[in-house]
């Protein structure tokens, strides 16, 4: 699996952003107000939902740390409330996207056992370079016929989709770096050296339902 050029990544970001903006009407309207209205007198929206915002920003793990900021986009159909201090704060927060990077060690399958299974593991080191806590760091792996991630993996929430699977790990504080051991197994007796890619991003919730699959590579 892999990723295309910057244009595709940007598209992905926007696509995911659009999907992940299940931020509630309050946020949508607040953001819309921030982008579309210069003044107003309506009361400020309840800040509580805004504090739960996590703007999805897919980060190709090969990408440089300076990811393109993501700005929430509101639709024209959204109601137009007044611009408020809370809305401005929300907008600023969404522009200040946290930046996740990751590196991975190689995977070497060991000797086969009595059922022919070969096991191995590699380690992913994930770092939050941002200034804010990342609530739902999300890893997405493309399904292939060789590698099976075992249930021993330390995912807070793991989900299998048709062509990919996801692993949400525990929140990552600003500046925090964490190693994640990935235990794999395969029934394949041998094979040529292969390259596997995965993607890291922020999800909006632990279900990670809105995350699209990475492209094969």
């Amino acid at each position, binding site marked *: 699996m892999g990723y295309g050029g910057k244009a595709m990544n940007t598209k992905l970001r926007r696509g995911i952003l659009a999907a992940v903006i299940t931020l509630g009407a309050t946020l949508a309207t607040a953001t819309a107000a921030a982008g579309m209205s210069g003044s107003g007198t309506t009361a400020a929206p309840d800040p509580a939902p805004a504090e739960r915002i996590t703007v999805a920003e897919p980060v190709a793990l090969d990408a440089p740390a300076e990811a393109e900021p993501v700005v929430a986009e509101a639709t024209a159909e959204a109601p137009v409330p007044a611009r408020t201090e809370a809305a401005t704060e929300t907008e600023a927060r969404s522009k200040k996207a946290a930046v996740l990077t*990751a590196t*991975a060690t*190689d995977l070497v*399958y060991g000797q086969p056992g*009595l*059922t*022919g299974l070969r096991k191995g593991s590699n380690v992913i080191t994930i770092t939050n370079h941002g200034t804010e806590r990342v609530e739902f760091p999300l890893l997405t792996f493309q399904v292939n016929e060789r*590698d099976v991630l075992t249930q021993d993996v330390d995912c807070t929430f793991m989900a299998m989709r048709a062509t990919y699977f996801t692993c949400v790990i525990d929140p990552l504080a600003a500046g925090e770096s964490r190693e994640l051991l990935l235990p794999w197994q395969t029934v394949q007796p041998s094979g040529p050296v292969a390259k596997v*890619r*995965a993607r890291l991003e922020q999800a909006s919730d632990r279900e990670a339902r809105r995350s699209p699959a990475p492209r094969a590579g």
Partner: protein
Amino acid sequence: MSWKVSFARLTGVFTIKATPLVYSAPDQVGIRHGSTRVTIKNLSAEAVRYPTVTFQSNGAAAVFADWSGCVQTFNVSWDAACVEAPLAPGEERTLEFPFQTDGPMTENDAAVRVEAATDAHGAVIPGTAVGTTYLVTSPSDN
């Protein structure tokens, strides 16, 4: 993020492969027949005098029959074992192992292993075993 995936060089005594076992429809007396072909290879630099192939029963009501390629056959509990002829360094051999059953067979993954023994009676040498699985099906029962 990306990483390389590779396989460690095999350091054991053997490799083993097995083909799927597909049972036939019941014959005139209600017996289903099928077989799996098991290929073993001696990876070591020394001859293995008593390569022993053992089929784990996994609870399926199947029995082995006509294992003509074996020097010796015997049961260990519910498992069925076959001591093959000696295997020279680097030598590979494929034997067919017929099975039969008189009851419906549900699809399952069965296990088979090969290990070196010190005699023809199943005194295996620890650490020499390697195994694989093969799919067992009985299309006429489904």
